[in-house]
């Protein structure tokens, strides 16, 4: 059974005049690293919200089909019940930090769920250690940079011990350096068996780690598969998705009749492929 199952799911926000999600069918298995991308307003955030029940429990609207997460139908379970299954990290870091220091922030989720005190303390220390937050321990969110805030927000979500981490453009408000730190962290979590759903525009940073890319447009899924397969489709340019530079070069070369063996995702891969061709 897949961890997340969208079955012919459609959703329209109350007061909106078009569907935000249109007959979405999507299965995500445990351990996958799914990158979700598509033009602005195509429904990526709505899809993330549907995974932990914010849609339809928090955001009301018209709904068809079902979303089943770890065997639970999101129509029948409230967001708090789904919190230990799907952990969401959002775009604006400062709106996710609701307490006055890092320890409290990380403890907030488990406290809400009624986890035992000793266990909360253990998780807090573990996450502070893992995400390198020691120097921020006593700080007010206002005294931290955006990147630091987002790391704390991530720790606060991971403290719920979710089965899947859903991150909705966690790096869009950050400088490139902090963005890379956050994305590396996510890739690392996936290597430790965490299922990840990541919304991201900077595909050149994430496609090498992803196991799957899902492309959305106007509320529907228009492509879904291996990163190399999806990113080399012409569809990407048509709907305006920024594919990695190396993949772009691959496509240009192909247009001029110059075929490489494999679709490259990074500069390093491209270099190796070109070298191979030259040696032949």
């Amino acid at each position: 059974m897949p961890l997340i199952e969208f079955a012919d799911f459609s959703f329209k926000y109350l007061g909106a005049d078009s569907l935000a999600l249109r007959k979405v069918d999507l299965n995500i298995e445990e351990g996958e690293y799914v990158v979700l991308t598509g033009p602005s307003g195509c429904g990526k955030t709505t899809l993330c919200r549907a995974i932990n029940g914010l849609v339809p429990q928090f955001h009301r609207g018209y709904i068809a089909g079902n979303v089943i997460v770890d065997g639970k139908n999101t129509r029948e379970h409230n967001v708090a019940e789904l919190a230990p299954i799907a952990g969401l990290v959002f775009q604006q870091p400062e709106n996710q930090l609701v307490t006055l220091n890092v320890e409290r922030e990380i403890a907030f989720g488990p406290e809400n769920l009624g986890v035992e005190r000793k266990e909360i303390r253990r998780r807090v220390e573990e996450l502070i250690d893992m995400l390198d937050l020691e120097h921020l321990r006593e700080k007010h969110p206002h005294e931290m940079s955006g990147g630091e805030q987002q790391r704390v927000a991530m720790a606060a979500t991971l403290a719920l011990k979710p089965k899947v981490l859903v991150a909705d453009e966690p790096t869009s408000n950050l400088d490139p350096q902090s963005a890379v730190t956050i994305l590396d962290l996510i890739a690392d979590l996936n290597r430790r068996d965490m299922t990840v759903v990541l919304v991201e525009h900077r595909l050149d940073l994430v496609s090498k780690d992803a196991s799957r890319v899902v492309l959305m447009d106007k509320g529907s899924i228009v492509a879904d598969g291996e990163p190399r397969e999806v990113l080399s489709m012409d569809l990407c340019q048509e709907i305006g998705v920024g594919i990695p530079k190396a993949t772009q070069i691959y496509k240009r070369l192909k247009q001029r009749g110059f075929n490489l063996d494999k679709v490259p995702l990074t500069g390093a891969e491209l270099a190796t492929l070109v070298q191979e061709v030259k040696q032949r």
Partner: protein
Amino acid sequence: MSFLEVFQYTRQDSVIHKLDPRAKLFMSIVLAVVALMFLAIIPLLIIFCCLVPIIGAAKSLRRWSRSMRGLSILLIFIIIFNTLLSTQPNPFSHSLALTLRLVALMTSFSVFFLTVHPDELSQALIQMRVRFEFAFAMSMAMRYVPTLGQEAYAIMDAQKARGVELDKGNLLKRIRNIVPIIVPLIIVSIRRALSIAESMESRGFGANATRTYMNVLKFRKRDWAVVTVSLLVLVFVVYVRIFVPLPTWMLWQLPI
């Protein structure tokens, strides 16, 4: 507004900071009540002699004296007006005592607010049976005040860039100028509140009745000691006030 600093938490490593907030609250209330029971210069000075060492033990004397200096102009005004308008036989002496009492009251409560972290305060409220939601709302207000301030400045800059003249014109015009600041600020805040609520729900806020707390406040021996001493002082002072007439040297007044 520098005198408000005495009501603002400052991180220090002191005996007073380590006390349980509930014990400190009790101590502050007792100190304030005692100050309210006297309106003569000598007893109020004696109360001061107890308050200053407590502030000292909280390592906050400098902050306290700076705030008091900030407050001094206001205090002098109070003394002058009271002296001129009072019908008491020794108006100056009376207003001096009034002012001393005001300062003593402020100092008593500042012992509490200077040394209790907002988190501790909300935890103390929760353990005094205040509902978690209310206590948490209070600490969230503290959390978002700086953010809101920042946003207000950003909006002001944006409006200035569009040609709104915020600091020109007469009083009425200036008051009307607040509208283009307040309206966007409210809209932005509502939007932010929704996004915060979303994030809190996602972390199980309001999940079940049995919420746990990582840091639980515990009454220790020293907290019991503080409470006991405060209680004894309170009983003693009330007893003296009701049954024992104050000796005349304590009721001494300035001749004017």
